[in-house]
């Protein structure tokens, strides 16, 4: 469904992505792990064109694109087929929860308002916020805001959802509510690419794990395989450094 080849990205003299190849099949839940500064977030942002890659090709649904010369129109068409969940939620601050979910439907996809409202309500119900439709972002906790953001992402029925460290800004107590919503999405067969530090999620929910460091993919394996028989020395060291507590959830 999504195939990436040779993504490169530099910020000035700093090479952040040094040629990444990646394939995601429909229904896959791929977790991207790695230490800070390894380029995980930049990779995700390049996939949705929030950063422009210096080189690389993308194949999405059988269509090919050159990442360094893709047109604005193609970018917008691709963005309409995908969704993005940010680390700090980025809900529209001047819109209520339900308006946040409706915005992409009504404005970008021209769904009639009453119908969009129904879809939005269903999405919010699904993430457990049926009593918070008309709350503004500042009236919601971090976990609730992130669940609105996930509702906003899934309401447009995307082919893939990118998650950029969706729980990193949350208290441990609030992390659980967001992770359980994500697990539910995964169970329903949503294709997801998740940059995360949650080992429990990577281990128990994802089907594939990618381990990145210094702008390259060090190891890619099925989740079970990755945690039980890591192939690379660097991966073993990374896993050994994690406290046992983080394997829960």
């Amino acid at each position: 469904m999504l195939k990436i080849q040779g993504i490169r990205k530099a910020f000035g003299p700093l090479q952040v992505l040094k040629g990444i190849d990646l394939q995601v099949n429909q229904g896959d839940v791929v977790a991207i792990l790695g230490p800070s500064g390894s380029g995980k977030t930049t990779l995700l942002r390049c996939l949705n064109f929030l950063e422009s890659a210096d080189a690389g090709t993308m194949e999405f649904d059988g269509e090919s694109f050159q990442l360094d010369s893709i047109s604005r129109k193609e970018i917008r068409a691709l963005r309409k087929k995908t969704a993005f969940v940010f680390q700090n939620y980025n809900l529209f601050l001047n819109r209520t929860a339900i308006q946040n979910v409706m915005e992409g439907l009504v404005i970008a996809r021209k769904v009639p308002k009453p119908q969009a409202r129904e879809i939005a309500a269903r999405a919010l119900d699904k993430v457990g916020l049926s009593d918070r439709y008309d709350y503004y972002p500042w009236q919601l906790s971090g976990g609730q805001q992130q669940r609105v953001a996930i509702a906003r992402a899934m309401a447009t029925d995307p082919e893939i959802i990118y998650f950029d460290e969706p729980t990193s800004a949350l208290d441990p107590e609030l992390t659980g509510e967001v992770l359980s919503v994500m697990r539910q999405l995964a169970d329903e067969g949503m294709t997801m690419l998740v940059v995360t530090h949650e080992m429990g999620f990577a281990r128990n929910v994802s089907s594939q794990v990618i381990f990145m460091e210094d702008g390259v993919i060090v190891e890619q394996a099925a989740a079970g395989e990755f945690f039980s028989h890591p192939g690379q020395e660097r991966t073993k060291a990374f896993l050994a450094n994690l406290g046992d507590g983080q394997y829960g959830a």
Partner: protein
Amino acid sequence: MSDGRLWSLFADSFWKILLPGLTMTIPLTVIAFSLALVIAVCVALVQFANVRVFKQLARFYIWVFRGTPLLVQLFVVFYGLPNVGVLIEPFPAAVLVFSLNEGAYCAESIRAALEAVPVGQMEAGYCAGMTYLQIIRRIILPQAMRTAFPPLSNSLIAMVKDTSLAANITVTEMFMVTQRIVARTYEPLLLYIEVGLIYLLFSTLLTGLQRMGEKRLSTHTKKGGE
């Protein structure tokens, strides 16, 4: 002069001064400020969006109108332009100058407010599939206008007072009417204090309106609503 005569002069002239306030000062302010806002939003947006040639034009416009005295601008338009065959009536000339002058200041308030909107708002809009203009109109500008509201109110209050300068290009607003009464009665202290009080009254009303406006606009921020 007796206190009684002073008091009746004060009372008589109050309505004489207030009337041009209602028929000239306020319409001049309302019309010119509305136009100034339109100019300011456009000038701020072309800078925010980095539209090449327009951005330079915008900087030039702000440079000229912030850098020269309002009074000089009024004189150039009203007394100067007839030299090149452009005759403008006093009131429209005042509207033109006040809106252009105020637009330059308001543009900077709005530009600052646009830049203060977190960059994530734009990114979230893109990820929702919206176009740049859709995001500006529905997400960025509404948030920026809330931030810009206090400085814009400041500009509005300043403008009410600055309209007194229009007396210099024969607009019969409050200050000119006061000057005429002074010329007849020789009571400058009383009458100039009186017109000052009426300006103060207008500013106070506007400050009240500002507070109400801020409350209404702030439903989506922590400070207001609830």
